[in-house]
């Protein structure tokens, strides 16, 4: 079994769109067209800003949660926060610029609706924001902290790793900060460069005691965020910023939960397992379509959803079926979360073989993984 980890850039690059916001649907033939699209009437090639291209694939409208409404990702987040503040009188939302609605509009309207003691700005200090949030949670109240960009979460790393993650364990369960949730915009947006594009989930994956969650869509985001807020452990919820406006779906108006630590097989297949989370799920969905069409390869596509604790069983079960694993993430390759998945899956199969003493049920190519 070969496991292959790749960054977004390493995968088949899809045809670049013109400027951000002008998505063109990929068709097989389109792949071979040039990256530059002549636009102007004079025939002179007008250089447009090239951005990595993907197409958000909405899921079918959910039927089991009541009335739905068309929402983009940030509206789905607002809806989840609205639901939370409505049913939990202790819940508060705080961070930089959340009062006026937030730099990504995730908290629009909430201060007017719930009051300035519940939705408020803090000074510009991430270590303070998270420390403050831990303190609220220690008293049992629900704390929803916003870090303006995941790139700026690092000043709070000590509070997250040394304090939040260890609060329950070190106190012998006398104290905990389980009612803390930290939200942060995450991932590539095209123009974000070094400091508005990071995906730091791998740093936190190494930290037992917290949960790390990344949604791929508005429907997933609302359900997962509600689960994080209600979860009795401190959670970090990374929101793919490029999807804030680009991803639009029917999302239930009422609260509902999407379970944590459960990966979702969003497409079944037999030849290779593709694993991703967040924005990259849509990329690998397109890859799966292309692979089927061009190579006749049947891909099983898994959205991991929760990075920590991650759903080892679903991924292993899939790899046992297909015999091949490819994991793709935007974050850097070395020490990226794909390494953890890859090594765990390989170890687990080895145990399988040792226990059963039988040939593995899928092919085991001789090449070593590239990860």
């Amino acid at each position, binding site marked *: 079994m070969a496991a292959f980890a790749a960054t977004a850039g390493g995968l088949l690059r899809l045809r670049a769109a013109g400027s951000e916001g002008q998505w063109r649907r990929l068709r097989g033939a389109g792949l071979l067209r040039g990256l530059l699209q002549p636009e102007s009437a004079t025939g002179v090639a007008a250089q447009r800003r090239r951005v990595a291209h993907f197409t958000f694939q909405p899921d079918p409208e959910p039927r089991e949660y009541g009335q739905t409404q068309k929402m983009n990702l940030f509206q789905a987040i607002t809806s989840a926060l609205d639901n939370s503040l409505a049913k939990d009188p202790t819940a508060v939302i705080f961070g930089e610029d959340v009062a006026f609605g937030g730099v990504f509009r995730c908290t629009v309207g909430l201060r007017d609706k719930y009051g300035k003691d519940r939705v408020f700005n803090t000074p510009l*200090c991430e270590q303070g924001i998270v420390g*403050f949030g831990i303190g609220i949670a220690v008293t049992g*109240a629900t704390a929803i902290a916003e870090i303006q960009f995941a790139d700026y979460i690092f000043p709070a790393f000590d*509070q997250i790793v040394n304090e939040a993650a*260890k609060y329950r364990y070190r106190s012998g369960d006398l104290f905990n900060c*389980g009612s803390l949730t930290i939200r942060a915009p995450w991932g590539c947006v095209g123009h974000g460069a070094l400091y508005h594009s990071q995906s730091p989930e791998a740093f936190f994956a190494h930290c037992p*005691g917290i949960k790390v969650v990344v949604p791929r869509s508005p429907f997933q985001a609302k359900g997962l965020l509600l689960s994080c807020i209600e979860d009795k452990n401190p959670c970090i919820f990374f929101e793919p910023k490029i999807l804030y406006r680009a991803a639009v779906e029917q999302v239930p108006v009422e609260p509902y939960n999407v379970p944590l630590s459960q990966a979702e097989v969003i497409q079944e297949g037999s030849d290779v397992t593709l694993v991703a989370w967040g924005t990259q799920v849509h990329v690998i969905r397109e890859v799966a379509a292309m692979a089927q069409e061009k190579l006749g390869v049947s891909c099983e596509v898994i959205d991991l959803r929760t990075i920590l604790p991650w759903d080892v069983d679903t991924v292993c079960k899939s790899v046992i079926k297909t015999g091949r694993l490819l994991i793709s993430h935007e974050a850097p390759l070395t020490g990226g979360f794909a390494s953890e998945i890859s090594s765990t899956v390989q170890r687990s199969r080895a145990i399988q073989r040792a226990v059963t003493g039988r040939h593995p049920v899928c092919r085991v190519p001789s090449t070593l993984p590239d990860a």
Partner: protein
Amino acid sequence: MGSSCPRPPGPKALRLRLGCPLLCLLQKQLPRRQEQQHFPSLDDKPQFPGASAEFIDKLEFIQPNVISGIPVYRVMDRQGQIINPSEDPHLPQEKVLKFYRSMTLLNTMDRILYESQRQGRISFYMTNYGEEGTHVGSAAALDNTDLVFGQYREAGVLMYRDYPLELFMAQCYGNVSDLGKGRQMPVHYGCRERHFVTISSPLATQIPQAVGAAYAAKRANANRVVICYFGEGAASEGDAHAGFNFAATLECPIIFFCRNNGYAISTPTSEQYRGDGIAARGPGYGIMSIRVDGNDVFAVYNATKEARRRAVAENQPFLIEAMTYRIGHHSTSDDSSAYRSVDEVNYWDKQDHPISRLRHYLQSRGWWDDEQEKAWRKQSRKKVMEAFEQAERKPKPSPSLLFSDVYQEMPAQLRKQQEALARHLQTYGEHYPLDHFEK
């Protein structure tokens, strides 16, 4: 040039500097609404949103005042006599005796546990010598339900709240009676019942947390204050700055209690800060601040009492810098003779000790005498030794507790690791001191 333009509203400075043509251009660009705004007294006062102050036309840097800094509030002199009778809190005898017993019992426990580390019975210990007044004076001024966030040298607060010796010992020994389940190094106490949040080793991390807890208490109309203890060294951490700023801007009912004991391990205050200590930082954040004699238990009591009353009534933070001296080493891993003189230490031990000063006060009132002192010393030592011997005999918690409480529920991966350890111990258990641990 100027006559064709209507007289513009706007600052005099702008008119003088830009000249009319540019101003006319600006006026054309400005939306109607802004043109109609008037700033009548612009000539007299600065209008910056960031500061409320007068103009000055003399170039002058503000000199930080460290020669004659914020004064030190005290009630008793070094001989335990009340200086200004109107500041005497007139506490009843029983209460003051409780102060004394708490401080001396702590001192006795410190001596025995320090020794026990030296003898290899516990792994590590930190004494509170010289700072007992800061703990007990402040703890006595709080309500029992006020939430305490400490650093690591506040055991007297727990002692005052009647935390049993058995539990102090249990945590230091990491035995089965430890409420913390034996997971942390000694002196990392915690007690939910007594509203004392479990100590953690990283410094100053408790400061913004205490602020959050205070905010939640305010929202809950709990009439509770949160008190947050830290040393002058920890006050250099970014978390301290964060905590102060958040407490002020978010109007939190919190008492920041800084134990300025002169040293952060080996680092003297001259290498820790250059300003006038920690109290002088308070006003920079908009925080009411005071400096007190930390070795004067009544000064500590009075300041904390008043801070508590106002913090809860007015929802604002208070900063108390309690000046004191760390008579003991930083910990059992430290030998402070490497960086300070024995004479210096002896001065504080003999001439300005919170326990001695309170004893003199008690004796001058006729509330204590040498015979009671002798009897109490014997009794407190006996109590400590009994608890100590009991703690020694108890086993350590089960190894399976390595994996619980990481999360509220145990995730599958941790359960697998727990099972793997159990299998490992079944096969190789003879190589581990399993006899000392519960099954």
